[in-house]
């Protein structure tokens, strides 16, 4: 029914505003649905392990370890989420992060050999170089994917092999030692009881969240993943969007490399070999649709914490890392299957118009 009477115009306007407010509220509830599920999972995991081994699990050391382990994995998971948001995947993240850490360790050792004091002072340059290596790796991925049109999975599979091979050849398979003391100091320090690295992680997460939800670039990234064809016809420059996405995943890998070396002044080619699977598990568990279009940074952050709680809980229960690998696999498959079943049920409830 249409309200045409001019006297009723305010009413109609009010109707409209109520309607839009209502749909906005609905959208909020729906977004919160995924995040709320993660919050519940997080709380359940925490309560279970706290009840089973309170003396070990609730100790300050353990909680601090959870907060110290999360940043590097969380940043990589956010990078994976970004790649998945465009419907792609980035398998080279860990290799890029290691290459960045190795660059920093090598640079510092070379500088310290000449003048230890100067090497300490040059710490911003060293960190920048590490982050730049990540960005460079991301640029290579972006060129292959957006420029040549190679499928993300194959392009990053190839670059993962290349980056990892370079790292192995560079280090000779050995572990490198050495990092500026300022960096190690940051890794060991706390801000009001919370490890500084964790605060930096939250900062990175907020920044990426703002980019995705509050900038034109973020909107375009989401559109590109939700429907590439529609994005193309809406005049979105897909190539530029993909390029900037993989530049960002590279940047985040570089930051993860800085976190690696801040926590532990060593770098090696095979550090975090199990992270590739773990990071995908976290991204998917955090509500990221691997086919693109849907993801929340907050969900990924919560998923990171949940997985870290499960990991440290397994350690507290004296379960092996192999059993943790089983748990990761089960969580991944279960999360995907649950999502699929939910989606199918929703589709069955609201049958789509059949083409005649």
């Amino acid at each position, binding site marked *: 029914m249409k309200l045409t009477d001019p006297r009723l115009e305010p009413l109609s306007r009010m109707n409209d505003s109520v309607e839009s407010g209502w749909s906005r509220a609905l959208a909020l509830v729906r977004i919160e649905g995924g995040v709320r599920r993660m919050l519940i999972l997080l709380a359940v995991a925490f309560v279970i392990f706290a009840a089973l081994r309170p003396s070990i699990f609730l100790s300050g050391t353990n909680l601090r370890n959870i907060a110290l382990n999360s940043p590097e994995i969380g940043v990589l998971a956010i990078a994976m989420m970004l790649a998945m948001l465009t419907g792609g995947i980035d398998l080279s993240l860990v290799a890029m992060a290691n290459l960045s850490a190795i660059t920093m360790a090598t640079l510092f050792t070379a500088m310290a050999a000449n003048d230890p004091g100067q090497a300490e002072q040059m710490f911003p340059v060293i960190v920048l170089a590490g982050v730049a290596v990540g960005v460079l790796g991301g640029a290579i991925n972006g060129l292959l994917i957006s420029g040549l049109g190679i499928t993300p999975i*194959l392009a990053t599979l190839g670059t993962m092999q290349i980056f990892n091979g370079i790292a192995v050849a560079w280090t000779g398979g050995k572990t490198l030692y050495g990092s500026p003391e300022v960096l190690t100091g940051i890794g060991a320090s706390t801000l009001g009881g919370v490890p500084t690295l964790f605060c930096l992680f939250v900062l990175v997460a907020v920044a990426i969240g703002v980019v995705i939800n509050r900038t034109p670039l973020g909107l375009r990234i989401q559109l590109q993943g939700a429907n590439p064809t529609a994005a193309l016809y809406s005049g979105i420059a897909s190539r530029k969007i993909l390029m900037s996405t993989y530049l960002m995943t590279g940047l985040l890998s570089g930051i993860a490399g800085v976190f690696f070396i801040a926590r532990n002044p060593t770098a090696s080619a095979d550090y975090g070999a199990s992270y590739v699977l773990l990071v995908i598990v976290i991204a998917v568990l955090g509500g990221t649709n691997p086919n693109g279009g849907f993801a929340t940074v907050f969900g990924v952050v919560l998923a990171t914490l949940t997985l870290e709680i499960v990991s440290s809980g397994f350690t507290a229960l004296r379960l092996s890392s192999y059993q943790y690998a089983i748990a990761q696999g089960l969580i991944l498959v279960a999360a995907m299957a649950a999502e699929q079943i939910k989606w199918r049920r929703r589709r069955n409830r609201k049958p789509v118009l059949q083409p005649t």
Partner: protein
Amino acid sequence: MSAISLSLPTRLSRLRGANNEGVLALVLLALIVGMSIANPVFFTLPTAFSILRSSIVPLIFALGVLMVIISGGIDVSFAAIAVFAAYTTVQMHQNGAPDLGLVAAFLLALLIGASLGAINGFLIARFRLSTLIVTLGTQGIFKGALLTYVGSRYVADLPDSMAAVSTTNLFAVDTASGGAYLHILVVPAVLMAVGLAWVLRYTMFGRSIYAIGGDVEAARRAGIRVVRTQMVVYVIAGTMAAVGGMIYVIMERSASPQILVGSELDIIAAVVLGGASIFGGRGSVLGTTLGVLLVQVIFNSLILAGVPSAWQRTAVGLLLILGVGIQAITSRKSSRAKVMDETIQKQEVPA
């Protein structure tokens, strides 16, 4: 155009093959000729036989991966399945079970491989989940379960029946540069390649795999039972992985749950290099075989050239990017050319 006198472009495109097999063969040939000129040691029977020997296991894995890729999926769990099947079989003997004999041992491994493949198939076909993510997950589950519940120790003494095969050669030739031995286990690899090529080309099942990989919905409407075919594909892929694992263990004369780690990507790279499309619906056994041989020849050349083995991984990555990049560019060009042709035809119609 008559069938007898084909025009030159047609003949050339025939030589090139549906999946660029001809180009790949040419690259392989050029590499072999180049290496032989650079290093005469390369062009000898012992080198050829050793390349063939090192290609056996990758080829068997690649055949399983090829089938999965043609069906539109990707499998990164095959190495975990291979280790699980082979190590469990050996470990049972280690724990006091009698020597089963070669055939029974293989059957046991195949059964394990088929069951693990069925888990993959069930999750992928029933829930329609992303194949990469499912097999990444099951890879972790299989590896974790093997190390937790079966064993984690290195086993150096295989059952006698298996150990006996490891020293059997198909034939040995004495050449000027030393003895050349062709390992007996080349036979099952060749048989499997020929068998899979036949299945893919001439059976309803094989054609269904291509159809599903090309377009699932179209295949379903054409009356192909998609879920069942996908299930069978993953069961067979698991079984083939188990064969590869057993042969690897026999040739190495030892078993450990840590073997084959990281080899997944080399295999997938070889299959993709062999012309199989990661989107499904395209790929051939001939191309895959050439891809595997190319990777092995490059490994061998790098060793002969004195390049540290650390660079092997980089070489495979570069090769993959190069191969896929060229495919991507040519496909873009040909699709553009097709559009041009169609526009020209459309313009010609009114005139």
